Every structure is written in structure tokens, then in C-alpha cells.
């Protein structure tokens, strides 16, 4: 195993993982803050370091469409996008999951227009919540590298065959340089099986892919799709376990930090979790029983792991980095409420929204969120969605 730590930008670490996975086709269209990923991949192909076809398509809609084609013919396929690009792909995303094409995509999460913002938040992710992809959040550059490699393994497993997104906060992760451990090619070759789609397009064994479904059969195609996506969690866990045996780095669907004996839990997703940990540390020093929950697996939603992780807490404060305009709370918080509602005993839930359009959340702000959440819970103000640090 590579034991040397090297410094690398998040985007380059993603490209490195794609190279080590020996991807066959990359079809992509540039958009900030995803650009460094696809530029680096183009460079690797141009230098013969990655033996792949790079398709410089004319739009994200075509990027994802080209990925459908290459994946359907049996080629290991990668793309990356962000914000508006993800939205332009929207209708194609559903086709990828419905046709069971294991495309791997990193999304350098970005706010949505308008006003135009190239900076990070989770508005783009949340708009694609129900598109049937496996969705995984990374928190630092090491995780980005690891999770992209694992994504190929998960997506292409014959019992899974679902496209997979790895979410990487725009700029906060795509553009930071951090130290990480890479893997050797031989290690990756041993870890990652070859991609073989059982129904790939081939004249020797003609198949019809993407037939039209009248009302008497559409539902029968959707139920197995949902069952299969839920069942993919088993494989996700297996792959992460196998990866930990190789690297000693362990991933789980719900990650906790100082949460075991905590009365109050904060829930975040993505790169902000590391700042949130510092706030937890500080408050712990002050004797407060607070902890952190980080949702790594967004789809399929890890109900069991999540319910278990928050079972002992009295209060759960959820920070969303996206709005659901006119909706009940932030989109993640709504899911959390739904996930806990059937339980007899459950923590109280408070919803905050912040970190929109690239606005940072500092350690003191996280502390403030937790304190305010506690105060609101005491006052019984559970039905309020609060946007933090908004200038009036």
C-alpha cells in the first residue's frame, strides 16, 4: 500500500481515482467548480496516461446521454458536473438509473441560478434527490479519492447496476489542496473487478433497451427498481468493508462524532462537517453533551443506521445547505423528520438553513446554531425553519 502522503487538489484526486479505475469513456462539459476534474482527465488522456475516449460534448445533456451510450455498450464510464450542468442533465439522470447503467459521476456541488452563483451549496443535489442514483457525500480530499474508486465497484456490481454520484462541495473540496494517500495500480486492479454489463448492446446478442411502457406494465418496472436501489446498501457496505481491509480507512452510511452519549446532535453533510467537529470539540470542552452526525449515504437512505445513530439523543439540529421554497423545512431536514416520525421515541428536530451560494459557516456560527437550536427546543419552537446569518 502507498504509505506516502502527498498533497493534491480535490479535483486532481478525483481524476487520479478515475485513472486508476482505468475508465474507458469520459464524456463531459465544463462548468465551475467542476472544471479542474475534466481538464485533468483530458490531460491524462492526451498524455496517454489514461487509455480512454474523451468525448468533449456540446452540453451536459449530451454528456450524460453519451454516458448512457458508452455504459450500455459495456464501457466503464465517468463524468463530472455541477449546479446548472446537473440540472441540464436532469431528465437524462432518470434514464441512467432506470436502464441500470452504472455511470459514475462526481458533482462539485454548486448553487443554482438566479442570481448566478458559481459557489457551493446543495441546491443542485437536492433537486436530483429522486432520480434513482446512489448518492454519496465526501468530506475531504482523501474521502473524495476513496469514494470515487469505491463508486465504480458499487455501481458496477452485477446486483446493483445503478449510476452513482459522489458529491464534492464546490471549491471547499474541489479546489482545496490536502494531503492524502493514493493507491498503487496493482492494488486498485485487485480491488476493482472488471465491468461487465449482462445486457450490453452487441450484435451477437441483440437486446432492446429503453422500450416504452404502457400503464399495464410501467408500475411493474418501477417496483423492482426501487427494491434494487434499497438493496444496493448491502453491496455498498460490502465494498466499503473490502476497501477498509485494503487501506484501513473505513466508511459507513452514517458517520458519528462524539455522538454516543450526546443529548444534542447536529447533522450536516459534506465538507462543512470538519468545521462542525471543531465546534463540537469546543462545546465538549465546556462540558456540553453535544455530538455530530454526518450523513454520508444520501441514497439509498440508510434508515436503520440513521435511526440507530440518533436513538439516544433528545435533540437533533439539522443544517441544510439548500432551500425547499415554500416547503416544510430544509430538504434534508424533511427527510430526517420523515425517517424518525414512525418511531415511538425520537429526538426533537430543529431545522436551520445556511451556507448557501458559497457562504462559509465558521466554528462560532456552528456553536451558535447548536445553542440557538437548544433554546428553540426548550421554547417548543419546533416548526420554524430558520435561515442563519441573513442580513436584513
Amino acid at each position, binding site marked *: 500500500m502507498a504509505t506516502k502522503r502527498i498533497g493534491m487538489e480535490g479535483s486532481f484526486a478525483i481524476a487520479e481515482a478515475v485513472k486508476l479505475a482505468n475508465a474507458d469513456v469520459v464524456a463531459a462539459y465544463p462548468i465551475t467548480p467542476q472544471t479542474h476534474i475534466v481538464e485533468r482527465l483530458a490531460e491524462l488522456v492526451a498524455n496517454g496516461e489514461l487509455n480512454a475516449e474523451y468525448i468533449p460534448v456540446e452540453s451536459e445533456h449530451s454528456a450524460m446521454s453519451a454516458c448512457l451510450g458508452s455504459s450500455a455498450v459495456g464501457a466503464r464510464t465517468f463524468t463530472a458536473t455541477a449546479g446548472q450542468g446537473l440540472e441540464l442533465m436532469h431528465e437524462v439522470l432518470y434514464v441512467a438509473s432506470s436502464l441500470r447503467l452504472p455511470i459514475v459521476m462526481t458533482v462539485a456541488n454548486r448553487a443554482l441560478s438566479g442570481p448566478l452563483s458559481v459557489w457551493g451549496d446543495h441546491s443542485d443535489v437536492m433537486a436530483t434527490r429522486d432520480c434513482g442514483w446512489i448518492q454519496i457525500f465526501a468530506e475531504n480530499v482523501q474521502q473524495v479519492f476513496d469514494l470515487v474508486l469505491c463508486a465504480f465497484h458499487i455501481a458496477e456490481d452485477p446486483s446493483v447496476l445503478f449510476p452513482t454520484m459522489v458529491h464534492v462541495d464546490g471549491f471547499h473540496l474541489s479546489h482545496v489542496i490536502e494531503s492524502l494517500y493514493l493507491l498503487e495500480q496493482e492494488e486498485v486492479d485487485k480491488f476493482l473487478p472488471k465491468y461487465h454489463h449482462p445486457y450490453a448492446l*452487441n450484435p451477437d446478442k441483440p437486446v432492446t433497451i429503453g422500450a416504452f411502457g404502457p400503464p399495464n406494465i410501467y408500475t411493474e418496472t418501477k417496483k423492482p427498481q426501487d427494491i434494487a436501489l434499497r438493496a444496493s446498501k448491502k453491496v455498498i457496505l460490502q465494498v466499503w468493508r473490502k476497501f477498509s481491509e485494503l487501506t484501513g480507512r473505513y466508511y459507513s452510511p452514517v458517520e458519528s462524532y462524539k455522538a454516543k452519549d450526546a443529548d444534542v446532535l447536529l447533522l450536516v453533510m459534506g465538507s462543512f462537517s470538519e468545521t462542525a467537529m471543531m465546534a463540537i470539540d469546543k462545546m465538549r470542552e465546556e462540558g456540553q453533551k453535544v455530538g455530530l452526525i454526518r450523513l454520508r449515504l444520501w441514497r439509498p437512505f440508510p434508515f436503520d443506521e440513521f435511526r440507530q445513530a440518533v436513538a439516544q439523543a433528545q435533540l437533533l439540529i439539522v443544517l441544510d445547505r439548500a432551500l425547499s421554497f415554500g416547503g416544510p423545512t430544509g430538504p434534508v431536514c424533511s427527510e430526517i423528520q420523515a425517517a424518525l416520525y414512525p418511531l415511538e421515541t425520537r429526538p426533537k428536530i430543529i431545522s436551520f438553513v445556511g451556507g448557501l451560494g458559497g457562504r462559509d459557516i465558521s466554528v462560532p456560527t456552528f456553536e451558535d446554531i447548536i445553542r440557538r437550536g437548544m433554546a428553540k427546543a426548550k421554547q417548543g419552537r419546533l416548526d420554524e425553519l430558520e435561515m442563519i446569518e441573513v442580513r436584513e
Partner: protein
Amino acid sequence: MESLAIYAPRLVTTKEYLASGHRACSGCGEVLAVRLTCKALGRNVIIVNATGCMEIVSSQLPYTSWEVPWIHTLFENTAAVASGIEAGIKVLSRKGGYSQKTKVVAMAGDGGTMDIGLQALSGALERGHNFIYICYDNEAYMNTGIQRSSATPFGASTTTSPAGKISIGQTSWKKNMPAIAAAHDIPYVATACTSYPFDLMNKVKKAMKVEGPAYIHVLSVCPTGWRLPSDLTIKAGRLAVETGVFPLYEIEAGKYTLNFDFPQLRPVEDYLKLQGRFRHLSKEVVAQIQERVKAEYAKLKRKVIQGS
């Protein structure tokens, strides 16, 4: 078999790659064109089909009419999906994971090609993928109920360009899609029509030999949408060619060839009067169309004479 046209029809394969039992309307020119295309293509192809009549009539779950590998995903992305398949085959062949020389063939209607799919098509042609793109032009969005497209001819009544008290129906002239394809400087562009089956199959065979993008634009008579008795499909296609409304030509490496020349074009009225979609047209409008057809035909002939 260099040129199917000079051999007897019985030399055409009896093998069907588009099985019968599909759900096309009777007299459908599009399904006939696809069937003939498939005969010319043979088995070593992967077909990418846009949303539209062809996809709907040939693929209703749990059945399929396709005896060759076939994929449908969306309406506007056919050329992009074909790009991905072509690139996939290329890299897998290089890495030893694919062992035959398969031609990728994209198929779409006029809407899927000239309107909503134009960007994806332009991108794929410009990038130079090795594939054939065939537009089956029935001159409207037939699948959704005869709405106008940019291929709908001037004066035609459709459900979104209806003829009315103060409208003649479609008020714009048909977009010249073969010229747009040719403007990408691709090796092969052709027009064809089901009423000239050997010419159509010949052109498909030619396109198969091309390295790089080939574009074929097939006029596909639609009795349902054109308000035409279903036994007149072939006749209407012939008249479209003989009146100069839809000339059959090829552009090979920029060089124009007119495959059927008519020194004396038949009057467009012979073509228009067969079809209910033109029934409302006044003599003046018919004359206007006649003028336009003449001028366009002369323009095409000049290109043929000049060679490009």
C-alpha cells in the same frame, strides 16, 4: 453488391431485422423506410432511436420488433447517445473487449432531428464520430398528434399551425436540414424517399462504408398526418420527387449529385392536391409554393453543375 438499383428486387435480403407485428398506422412510410434501412444495414449494427412514432410502434413492453441491438433513451439526445456508443466500441476494441466492426446508426424524426435534437446532432457531426444519422422526416410531430415542426412545409395545416379564417397554416418554409448537415463538412449527406426503395438502400450501404459521420434525410410519407388515403403513400412520395418538392441527391465530400433529374418538373399542385393538409390553399398560395420549389430546384442544380 455495388448498386442495388441495377439488380432485381429479389436480390434484396428476405431477412427482416424489424419484425412484423409492430403498431404503425397502415400505409406508414416511416416504418417502411426503417424496414428497408435495416435490410441494407444487416445485422452488425447498434441502433439508437429517438422518442417518436418509430420508438412507440416498435418497442411496447413486453414486446419488441427489433432483431438487432436497439436502444431508446430520450427525444433530443439520439446523436449524443450514438456518440457514446461509438466511443465505447472504439475504446473497448482498443483494449480487447470488443471484437467486431459494428456500425452505430442513430434514427430520429424531423422533430427529434431538426428542432429539439439539432444541438446534439451538430455536436456529434462536428466531433466526427463514425456513425450514420438518419432523419425520418414525416414533416410534423406525428407521435404527439400532428403538431408543426421546422420540417413542416409552407401552407400545411397541422394541429399547432392550423389553417383558419386568417391563416394559411404553416407560415415558414421547410428548414433545409441536409444543407445544415453538409455545413459540418461531413463525408456523406443524402436525401432519400421510400418511394425509391433501391436508391434508399443504396444510400444506406454507401453511408455504411463512410469513415466518419454520414447523414441521410428520408422523406417518410405519413398518411395519418398528411390526410392522405393510406394506399397512396408510395404515390405521394414519387410526386414529392417528381414535382421537385423533395429532390433526391447526395453530397459526397462536398460534391453534389442529383440522383433523379426531371428536366420537366410536374406541377406542385399534383402533389398538394392529394393531401388534406393542403386542401385549404388558394391558387395564389399554390403559385407561391410553385415559385419557391422552382427556385430551390434551380439552386440545387447549380450546385450539382458547379460540383459543390
